[in-house]
């Protein structure tokens, strides 16, 4: 007999009690998505991280525990709503997310850039420069690129909709194949044209 079921029952009891006693500040879970596993963390003010991979990014963990302490625990229930909305998004049944995101551990500039990124509509594209302008500093497109590149909540904050001015895809934390697949999904297309699409002018 394996002890796995006993351990997972014990863990469930532990988490439930920790939550009752107000000891859990951030819950996380791993989602099996069409783009591979996604590590998701949700805190008291909303989604804190979506990371491509089954294990957390140490930078995410450091940022989260700086803001919320070490009480970061595996807890599917905290992540239920995010998982449901992501499932709907991947199944073409959702075009925008009805989720609070928690960007508090970031700098004010990073927050402004990501807030501007969040406004890019489903299926459309914009450039790093346009995002920088919306964030209040058109000259800071390189810095905006940095903030977008370290977006801790990809997909929900749709940094995959930001491309270079020449229409090339730029970079992506989940890798360029993931960026291509997200863009294709939003355009209802199977494939992204070679060289990418031209960015929208909005």
């Amino acid at each position: 007999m394996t002890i796995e079921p006993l351990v997972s029952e014990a863990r469930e009891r532990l988490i439930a009690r920790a939550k009752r006693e107000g000891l859990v500040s951030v819950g996380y879970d791993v989602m099996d998505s069409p783009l591979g596993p996604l590590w998701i963390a949700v805190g008291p003010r909303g989604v804190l991280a979506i990371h491509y991979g089954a294990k957390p990014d140490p930078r995410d963990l450091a940022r989260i525990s700086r803001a919320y302490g070490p009480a970061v625990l595996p807890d599917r229930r905290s992540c239920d709503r995010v998982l449901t909305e992501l499932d709907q998004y991947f199944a073409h049944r959702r075009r925008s997310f009805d989720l609070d995101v928690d960007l508090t551990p970031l700098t004010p500039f990073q927050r402004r850039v990501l807030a501007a990124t969040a406004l890019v509509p489903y299926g459309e594209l914009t450039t790093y420069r346009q995002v920088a302008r919306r964030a209040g500093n058109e000259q800071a497109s390189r810095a905006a690129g940095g903030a977008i590149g370290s977006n801790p909540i990809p997909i929900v904050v749709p940094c995959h909709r930001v491309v270079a001015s020449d229409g090339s895809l730029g970079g992506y934390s989940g890798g360029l194949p993931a960026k291509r697949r997200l863009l294709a999904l939003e355009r209802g297309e199977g494939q992204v044209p070679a060289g990418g699409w031209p960015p929208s002018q909005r």
Partner: protein
Amino acid sequence: MTFGELLERFEREIFAYVLRLSGNRLDADDLYQETFFAAFRSWPPPRAGNERAWLYRIATNKAIDRARRSRRVVPLADLRLAAPERDGVSLMDLRTAVRALPTGQRAAFVLRKVEGHSYAEVAEVLGCSEEAARSRVAEAMKKLKEAVR
């Protein structure tokens, strides 16, 4: 390190350890809860990189406290009286004999002979000298041999 990382990294082996110490799944579940709650409450671990020994120490102390509270330790003499005459020794006999050991000796025996920790690690978990750890294991072995003879 966050508490979740600690839990995911060590919960399985700590559960296995307290299951061996207590001999039943209900007590093991309770000991698991008590161990991780105590770790949570006394966070952070005293020394980075030494979280494993810290958890084992908490688990061992919890098991000892529990055994003291419940006073369910069966005296060795009773065990031998209750045991029927036999030729071979079954695993059940050995398990019963292990459970009859005082918790400190049982922990030393399980850590060294079942889980294969070094004497230095056993000493660290039990908060005693390496020599004391050796003598507890030796004492436990002697009693077990007597019990199943």
